């Protein structure tokens, strides 16, 4: 899923993005696997748990970078992060309450995948452009 042209020019953020794409890919593999749902459930649960925490760390680091370089669209970007973090949190609460329904998890995995591609492929690329305009940050 990860593409080299997603790089924005910050070593930390680029490696976190690669990690996120890798985790989402394993999430999709677990969600779409051929084995019974019970057999895949452990992997689904642990990947979801990891992503919930990792997204918080990554967003925090990416927002700190934006602050450091004086990125002018920082607030709009943070609002997008907040909305997505909230969606993940709500889903995690929902499955805790109602259990891991296969179809609901499949739908959620598709949302996470499209969000990540569009966000890193569009919104985050603006940070990369800004870094390049400023003559390279790191």
């Amino acid at each position, binding site marked *: *899923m990860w593409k080299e042209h997603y790089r924005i020019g910050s070593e930390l953020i680029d490696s976190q993005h690669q990690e996120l794409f890798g985790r989402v*890919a394993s999430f*999709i*593999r677990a*969600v*779409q696997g051929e084995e019974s749902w019970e057999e895949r459930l452990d992997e689904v649960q642990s990947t979801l748990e990891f992503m919930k925490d990792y997204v918080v760390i990554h967003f925090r680091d990416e927002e700190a970078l934006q602050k450091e370089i004086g990125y002018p669209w920082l607030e709009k970007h943070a609002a997008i992060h907040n909305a997505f973090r909230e969606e993940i949190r709500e889903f995690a609460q929902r499955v805790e309450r109602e259990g891991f329904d*296969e*179809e609901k998890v*499949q*739908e*959620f*995995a*598709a*949302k996470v*995948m*499209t*969000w990540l*591609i*569009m966000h890193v*492929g*569009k919104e985050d690329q603006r940070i990369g452009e800004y870094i390049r305009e400023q003559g390279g940050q790191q």
Partner: protein
Amino acid sequence: MKAEYINPFYKATIDVFRIMLNLDVQRGQLRVVEELGPVSEANVVIGVTGDLRGSLLYSFPKSMALEMVTIMAGMPMTKLDAFVCSALGEVANIISGNAMTHLSGTDLACQISPPQVFVGTEGTLSMATEQAIVVPLITNIGTLELSVSLTSANGR
């Protein structure tokens, strides 16, 4: 239904397909239909409210739908299951949202409803009372037919 409402959707599709799928999009010949109905197997319906009202119908051939999600996920997809259908709904949702942003540049403020996905080519969508314009959006993995049925809320 004005033909000028079509351009924002064309622009948004070009942009979203380039970013998400690395695909070029060409516009085919527009046609007017009396009823909003599915053309292909995988369909997404999105409602529009605000200064413009109506519905959008994204109709994907099955092979195109599977290939799109294969490209995004980086692994082969073989059936129109909940994962594939949800991904298609999200792509249509993103295109529609971006088109609404382009429309707001022309002083039209609209909101969209969450995407509804259905599989099959049967029937028409009863909520459509107006004509629709169908835009074929041609890519090298297939043609998405987007039907747009929008009217101005104040009768313009």
